[in-house]
C-alpha cells in the first residue's frame, strides 16, 4: 500500500471517531448539519488527496458552502435555525479540513505536524462541547452545541489566564476530556506523520538510497564509442562509484526514533508522578534542547561571529 494513503487513513481515524460521537446528538431532521459536515468532508478529501482538478472542485464546493451559510444567516428569520445547523456541521467537519493540509503530497513535515496538532485541539474542543450538551438534554439543538463549543473555548482561555495570575482552582473544560479511545487514535495519527518522515532523504526531500532499493550502476560497454579512452581512463570509468545503501544491520536514524520515544514515555511517567511540575520541567527541557541544537548547528557560529569573539 502507498505510504501516503496509509498515513491519510491514520490521520482520519480520531476525527471520524469524534464525528461518530457528536453527529448522533442531533435530530435526524437537521439536514443542514449533515449537509455541512458532508461538504467539509468532501472538500477535505479532495484537497488532501486530489490533484489540480480536484482542487478546483474543492474550491467550488467551498464557495458553495460559504454562499449557503451566508444565505442562511441573511434569511435566519425565515428558515429558523438552519444557520446553526450549518455552523454545527462545519464545526464537526473542521478537524477534517484542518488535517487535510497534512495529507497533501507536497506539504512539508512541519506543516503536517502543525495541521495535526491543530486538528487534535479542535477535536478535543468538540468532545468538550459534547460533554456539555450531553449533560443537558437530548437530542441536542444545533444552536446549543455551537454555543457550547465557543463557551468551552472561552472558558478554557479564561482558565489559563487565571492560572497565569495565580488562581488556585481554575475551570479548564478541555482538560476534563479524558477519552482513552480518542487518545489511542491520536497516537495512530501521529504515527501517520512519522510514517511519512522516516523515509531517509536529504533536506531538499531527495530520497537517499536504502537497502531495499539497491541500484547497481555497473559498467557501460558502449562508452568507448563516445570517447577514445586510454586504457587508464577506461579502467577509471569502469571503477566509478555508484549510489549505495548502508550495509549495517542497524538502520540509520533508528537512534533518534528511540531517543524521541524515550522522551515521550518519560513525559507520560512524569505527568503521572508530578502533574503540577511537569509543564515546568518540560519548558526547561525544551529550552535546554534548543540551546544545544543552537550550539551544534551553524547558528552558534553565526552568534559567535556577530559577537566578534
Amino acid at each position: 500500500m502507498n505510504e501516503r494513503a496509509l498515513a491519510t487513513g491514520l490521520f482520519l481515524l480520531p476525527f471520524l471517531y469524534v464525528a461518530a460521537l457528536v453527529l448522533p446528538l442531533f435530530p435526524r431532521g437537521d439536514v443542514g448539519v449533515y449537509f455541512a459536515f458532508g461538504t467539509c468532508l468532501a472538500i477535505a478529501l479532495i484537497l488532501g488527496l486530489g490533484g489540480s482538478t480536484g482542487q478546483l472542485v474543492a474550491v467550488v464546493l467551498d464557495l458553495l458552502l460559504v454562499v449557503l451559510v451566508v444565505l442562511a444567516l441573511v434569511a435566519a428569520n425565515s428558515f429558523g435555525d438552519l444557520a446553526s445547523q450549518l455552523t454545527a456541521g462545519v464545526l464537526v467537519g473542521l478537524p477534517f479540513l484542518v488535517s487535510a493540509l497534512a495529507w497533501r503530497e507536497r506539504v512539508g513535515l512541519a506543516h503536517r505536524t502543525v495541521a495535526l496538532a491543530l486538528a487534535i485541539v479542535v477535536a478535543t474542543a468538540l468532545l468538550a462541547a459534547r460533554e456539555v450538551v450531553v449533560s443537558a438534554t437530548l437530542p441536542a439543538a444545533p444552536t446549543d452545541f455551537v454555543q457550547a463549543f465557543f463557551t468551552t473555548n472561552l472558558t478554557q482561555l479564561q482558565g489559563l489566564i487565571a492560572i497565569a495570575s495565580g488562581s488556585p482552582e481554575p475551570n479548564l473544560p478541555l482538560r476534563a476530556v479524558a477519552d482513552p479511545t480518542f487518545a489511542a487514535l491520536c497516537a495512530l495519527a501521529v504515527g501517520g506523520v512519522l510514517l511519512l518522515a522516516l523515509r531517509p532523504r536529504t533536506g531538499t526531500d531527495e530520497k537517499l538510497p536504502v537497502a531495499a532499493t539497491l541500484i547497481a550502476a555497473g559498467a557501460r560497454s558502449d562508452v568507448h564509442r563516445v570517447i577514445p579512452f586510454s586504457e587508464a581512463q577506461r579502467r577509471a570509468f569502469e571503477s566509478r562509484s555508484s549510489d549505495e545503501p548502508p550495509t549495517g544491520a542497524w538502520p540509520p536514524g533508528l537512534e533518534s526514533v528511540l531517543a524521541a520515544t524515550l522522551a515521550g514515555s518519560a513525559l507520560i511517567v512524569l505527568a503521572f508522578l508530578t502533574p503540577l511540575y511537569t509543564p515546568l520541567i518540560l519548558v526547561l527541557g525544551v529550552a535546554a534542547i534548543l540551546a544545544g541544537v543552537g550550539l551544534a548547528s551553524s547558528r552558534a557560529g553565526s552568534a559567535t561571529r556577530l559577537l566578534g569573539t
Partner: protein
Amino acid sequence: MTQVVLTPRGGALLAAGLVALVFAFYSLSLVLFVFATFVIAFVSAEVFLFAYATRGFGPEAFRAQRLECSSFAPVNGAAFVAVRIEPNLRSGVYAEVYDAHPDRLTIVDGSPRLLTWWNPGVEKTLAYVTSPTVRGRFALGPTFVVAHDTFGFGFKQVALSTPWTLEAIPHYPSVRLRRPERFPTPTFGQSPHSARGAGMDFHSLREYVSTDDPRRIAWTRSGKGTMYVREFQRENQEEVVLLLDVGRTMAAGAGIADALEEAVEAAGFAAQYAFDEDIRFGLLLFSDRIVRHLPPGRGPEHEFEVARALAGAEVEPRDSSLAGVFEYLAPRLAYPAHLIAFSSLDGDSAELARAWGLLARSGHRLNVFAPDLRGFYPKLPTESGQEALGLLMRPEVDQVDRQAQQLRQFGVPVARYGRNGATEGLNLVFSQVRGRRVAG
C-alpha cells in the same frame, strides 16, 4: 571543524514541534504534550547524533585527486573527467559528492554527482564524460562533499580543492587537435589543396604506399614489414599573421555571438585555410598589450597551439592598440608577411598610420576586418529603444568609422564584419595570397 547546518526541513519541524507544544499548553491534552515532546526530541536527537557521527568532518578528513582527466577536447567532442576521494571518516554517513563544472559542459556519460552511503575507509570515484558546447577554458572543481543526516534535518559540507582546466578547442577539419606528443603525426597528402610533395626541404616520414616512388624509401628507418618514405615540401616562405583584438570593444554584441566570437570563428577559418595551403601561419592576440604571440609556423604542434590559443581568447577589460602591435611586429617579421587584423581600431589614428607606415615600407601587406558594431545587436522591439541604443553606441561606432577611413587613405583594405562572420572577405584575401604564390 565544520558545523552542522540545519536545513529548512529540520528547522521548520523544530518550530512545528514548538507550535504543537503551544497547542498542548492551550488544550492541556496529554496526547499533544507527548506529540510535541516527541517531535522536538526526534529532531534534536537526530541533530546531536549526526554532529557526533561526523565529528572531525572537514577538508582535512579527505584526500582528493584527479585521475586521467582530459586537458583538451574539441567543441562538441568529449573529454574524460574523474576524481578519487579517500575519506578519513569515523563512522558511516550519507553523503552527496559533487564535482563542480561549468554548465557549458554537457554530461554525456557517467555522473559528476553521487548520493550514497559512505563507510569509513572506502574510496569513492566520480567519473564522467563531458562535452563542451562552446570554445574556452573551463575550470573544474572544487569537489564538494555534503554529509546528510538520515532524515534531512541537517548537513555538513566541505569543498575539496581539485582544480583542473579543460580547454575546449574549436574543431577545424584540417587542424590537428590531438596532442602531438601523445598521438602519431597524421598521414600527409590527404588534403586536396596540400602543397606537400615535390620539393627539396625534408618534411617528414610516412608509411610506404604502392604508388610511391621507390627512390624515396628511407631504408635506414624502415624495418621488417614496415616501409617508410621521405616527404619533402616546396621551398615557401609565404607567411600570414592573424592579429586578433581582444580589447573591450570586441565584447560588443548580445549573448555569446559577440564581435570577438565572430572574429575567433573567422580566425579559425583563416588558420584552416593557411594550413591546407601549407602557408606559414602566425597568430597574435592583443589588447593594449601583447596577450599571446605565436610566430608563423607549420606542423601539427604549431596547428595545435594555434587552435589552443584561439580557444582561450577572451575579452580583456581594457582598450586595444593596433599601432602597438605594428611596432611590436616590425623587428620580428623576417619575411614580407600578409597581416590580417580583426580589430575595433581603438587608439589614435595618426599613431596607427605612422606605425603601419613602418611595416608597409618593409613590404608587408595588411587587411583589416573591423566589427560592424550595430550589427551585433538584435533589433529592439521599440523605435525609442533602438534610438537609445544607437546613441549609446555612437562614440564607438564613429571611432571605428574614422579609423577605417584613415587606413583606407593609406591603401589598406578595410572590410566590415557582423554576425554573419567574415568568410567571404577572407576568401578574397586568401585568393590574393594564393595569386602571389603562383606568381612568385
